[in-house]
Structure formats: structure tokens, C-alpha cells
């Protein structure tokens, strides 16, 4: 039986704010759960995030946004990914996102948004259930 390849996940921090506590915790938790994790660091533009996702050939992209700019940044990352042929990558995210903004993000193609209080185990379980290694 072939060994199932490890999932590769990009954790990215688009936007100008420096709140990286959540992104770093999630990145470490995913690594501890056995995934391959690449972390972009802070202050990325949507184009930089999409470029990193393509270069690193990841299966999924997790975006952390706490600046209130989620309605701009999530769709912008989706567009930049699609433009580079990365539209098949699963995009999820987390941050300060009011419930009423969730439908707009889901319709932009974001697969899941974790809001404050989500446990790292929930995020790990969701990825195991929803992300498949590509090709």
C-alpha cells in the first residue's frame, strides 16, 4: 500500500497588522499533528500569499486576519490564487470575523472560517476531513 503523502499547508498572514499569535499557534499545532507547514510571516500582500502557495505546492492555505479587512483580503487571495492556476487549493481562515460576514466569505470560495475560541484540535480535525493531497 502506498504511503499517503503528508499534507502541505501554507499558513499566511495577509494585511498590515502584526497579530501573529494565532497564526503561529495554528502553524505549530498543524506541524505537531503531522502536516508539513510553511509559514509566510507577517505583512503579506494577497499576491505574495498566492505566489508562496504555488511555489510551495501546498494543498491548502490558511489565512489569519484580525484587522477587520477580511472582506477585502480573503477574496483578493482567492483571485490571486485563481490567476496563478491555484484555484483548486483549499482556502480556510480564522480571525476576528463577525458571523454576518461569513456568507460573503463562503460565496467567495473560502471553505471554512474559524472564529475566536476554536481549538487547535478542531482545526486539525477539519483539515483531515476536508483536505486531500493533490495529485
Amino acid at each position: 500500500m502506498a504511503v499517503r503523502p503528508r499534507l502541505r499547508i501554507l499558513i499566511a498572514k495577509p494585511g498590515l497588522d502584526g497579530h501573529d499569535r494565532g497564526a503561529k499557534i495554528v502553524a505549530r499545532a498543524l506541524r505537531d499533528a503531522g502536516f508539513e507547514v510553511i509559514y509566510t510571516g507577517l505583512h503579506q500582500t494577497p499576491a505574495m500569499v498566492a505566489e508562496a502557495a504555488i511555489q510551495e505546492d501546498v494543498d491548502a492555505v490558511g489565512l489569519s486576519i484580525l484587522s477587520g479587512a477580511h472582506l477585502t483580503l480573503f477574496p483578493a487571495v482567492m483571485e490571486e490564487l485563481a490567476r496563478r492556476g491555484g484555484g483548486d487549493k483549499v482556502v480556510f481562515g480564522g480571525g476576528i470575523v463577525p458571523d454576518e460576514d461569513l456568507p460573503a466569505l463562503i460565496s467567495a470560495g473560502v471553505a471554512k472560517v474559524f472564529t475566536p475560541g476554536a481549538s487547535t484540535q478542531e482545526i486539525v480535525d477539519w483539515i483531515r476531513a476536508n483536505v486531500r493531497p493533490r495529485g
Partner: protein
Amino acid sequence: MTKRDWLERRYRTEPERRLRFSTVSDMEVEPLYTADDLPADTAERVGLPGEFPYTRGVYPSMYRGRLWTMRQFAGFGTAEDTNGRFQFLLGEGQTGLSTAFDMPTLMGYDADHPRALGEVGREGVAVSSLVDMRALFDGIRLDRVTTSMTVNCTASVLLAMYLAVAEEQGVPWTAVGGTIQNDMLKEFIAQKEWICPPEPSLRIVVDMIEFCAREVPRWHPVSISGYHIREAGSTAVQELAFTIADGITYADAALKRGLAIDDFAPRLSFFFNLHNDFLEEVAKLRAARRLWATIMRDRFGAKDPRSLRLRTHAQTAGASLTAQQPLNNIVRVTVQALAGILGGVQSLHTNSLDETLALPSEQAVMVALRTQQVLADESGVANVVDPLGGSWTIEALTDRMEREARAYIERIDALGGMIRAIEAGYPQREIADAAYAYQQQVDRKEKVVVGVNRYQVPEERPPELLRVAPDVEVRQADRVRRVKRERDGAAARAALRRVRAAAESGENLMPPLVAAVKALCTVGEISDVYREVFGQYRDPAWL
């Protein structure tokens, strides 16, 4: 019976409901503290309020003389929106202003910059030029309020604007009082808003310390901040230690510039976090005062008592609040604020119950301010100076926090000081490790977060949230474009060249900055000069 006898003979036979008891920072605490936990010279080391080493408070009368300043951090949308919130808070009995700027302003981009897209007016007020700063303080005389401005890598520009507004109001700089956060070291350690690398960032901070000591004597040119270190996930001891180590670094740098310690140290102020663990927080604030007073006297030879007194603003812990059952946050904030008051702070911000969901609504801010007013006027705790002083537990924990913080400071000294430690990623890694360890404890339910991992309710109705008007970005971008179009272009270019010359030569940046903002040079343009002259710092992206 000694404590040891009591523990052996009476306590050990009793069952305990947990395997270990530790603070929110995971510092294990003993079941009981007695006089046996304190060295013989405790009374002397604790001292009296207003006396060295200021463990019991920096002033003799503390809140019997004057209550702490109630200072709610506010800012969203345009300058006019935030001016309205300021007027509301002053009308409700708030006694000082505190300004939150939006991310583009904090990071040195104008509202019309592509990187500002989606961020204008979201996390604070958008200020791109003097035109915005004037509107922000419209109708507020700058000699009648003290203002705190939370801004760091663009602090020099915003201070220049504030001084220009004062001048326009006919208020002399000597009558202008307030604080600008301007603590770049903790930016690299925790909050992570920066333009240029640590060394030139520190140089700009020292320019401001030097300039204010000479020209704006009632201003606090740097607010040495543990708040963001804690929010990034540090322990209480790390918050204390890294903050004091940052203070040492600023003092060293100002001395190297040629200033005398007592010329600037009285205007250094602090900003600490108030987290959930009540006893730990009270002890932290008391240890901070004793540590700073001792370091200023013994390490820096300060003589002026004002140099020895650690005066601090404090804010309840944003990261401790929960999106689940948000009304519970009022209770958390009350406990945290009480720790601040019993810890002897000079100024206080209480967080709003809806902050994990959005910027606070007017109603939520009102409850937060009323929390302080209830504590001040109804609880009675402000009637006695340092009422917890002499508690065996509080004094033992104060001793321990001071001791553990000293050990960290020695490690940082051994690394060659805080700048070298930052370059090596030392404080950043310590904090990330502590943050991860805490999250694991919460996920394993070893630490209880009410409403999140215990006592959950299935369905909740979200509170009314503040929404920033969607057209703010367009209006603000139009405004800064108009400013750039309509100003005297030649004068603005000349003023920017003067800023560049000062940046390159090492001459104090503040006088050319004041001239540049008056010529309507923008935050983005001046930050571009910094980027070009000093280079841009990039996140090392350590995990």
C-alpha cells in the same frame, strides 16, 4: 506551628481537587503563604507609599489624593468619526484621551496606497496628513486634556502633527501633556508594526526623547509597554522582564546620546497588561515598581526621585476576552481592572465586552467606563493606599516575580542587550513557546475558559456590533489625494528633503518633521523617506 509543620501535619492529609495549582502564566503557587515565606527585611524592602523602592505605590496619597486617569482607547473611521467618540467619552466623565490609529497610519502608508486597501479606518482612525489631525482634535483644547497616542514606527510623524495642531490652537508646547507609545523594541518582540530595522528605529525613539526633554517637558516620549508582549502570549514574568529590559535599553541609548539620566528618566512611563490571574497581576505591578526603582538608582545612578518612580498605564487583557457569551467579559474586565487598581496604576483602560467580535460599540464602551467608575466610587478600594500590602501571599509573589524577572534580565544582558536578543529571536521565541503551551492547556481543558471549554451554551445571540461605514476608505483616500494636489508642492518637496538630510546626517529628526507636517507632507511620504534611508525590516517568520 511553623508553615512546614502545618504543611506536613495538617495539610498533606487533606485531599486536593487538582493535581497542581498554577496561575494563568502556569506559575505554580503554594497552598498557603505565611510570614515564614518572607525574609526578615521584608518590611524595609516593601517600604511605604511614595518612598523608595515604591513597592506600595509611587505617591504617598495614591487614589486618596487623585484617582487614576480613566482613559478609554478609541479610534475608527475618519477623524470626524473619532472626534465624535472623543466628545462622547469626555461628556461621560472620562478624564483623558487615547487614540487608536488604523493599520495604514501605524505602518506608514497613506489611505490611497494599494497596501491600505481594506484597512482604512478599520482598526483605528485614519490619519494621513495634518488635515486629518486637525479634524481629530477639533473643539478639544490640547492644554485642557492629556492625550495618549498609540503609535510606534510612525510616532515621530504623529507627534509632529500633534505639536503642529497645538501651535495652531495657540497652545505652547510647554503646556502640552500626554504620552506617545513609541516603544519600538516591543514592536520587534511582540506587536510587530515596524518600518526599519531595530537600530535606526531606536535612533528615532532617542531623537524624540531628546527633543521632548528640551521642548515638550510635560510629554512622555515613550511608553515602555509590556501590554503587547502579554497579548502575544507571554507569561506575566516575561512581560515584566522584557518590559524592564526594554526600559534599560532606552536609558542606555539616551545616555549614549549624551543626555543625563535625570533629564529624561522622569518622563519615561510604562504600560502593563492586566490579565485574569488576580494575585499574579497585583504582584507583577508591585515588583515592576521595585525593580525599576532599584535599577534606576543602582545601575544608572539616578538621583531625582521622579526618575525612580515607575508610573504606568494599564489595560485589561484583550486576549482574555471571549466571543462566546460576551457579557461574561464584563466580569473578566472588572476583576482585571481591580487588580490594576490594587496594583497601583496611574491610568487605566477597561476593554469592552464586544472586542473579540469588532471594534467596540458606544454602549459597550459605556459599560467599560462605568466599570471603572463603580470601582472608583462604590467599591471602597480607592479609600486606602495599597490595601493588599503586607499580605504574605502578595509579598511572597512580588518577591518571586522580581527574582524571576531579574534572571531574565541577566540572560538578556549576557546576550549583549535587548537589540542583540531581538536579532537572535530570543524574546520572540520565549513568548511563542509560552503562547503555545497555554493554548495546549486550554485545548486539554487544564485551564478553564468559561463559555469556551466549559459551561458552553449551544446558541447565542450576537450583540449589536459597530460597523465602520464602507465608504470611509474612498472618502479618506480622496481626501489625502486632494491634500497632495492642493498643497504648495515645492514647499512640501523641500520639507521632505530636510527630513531626509536629518535622517542621513543623524541630526534630530523632530524639528524638520514638524516643518514637514506643516507643509502637509503625509505619513506615507515621510515613512518612504525612512524606508529609503534606513531600509525596511522584514518578519523573520520564526515559528
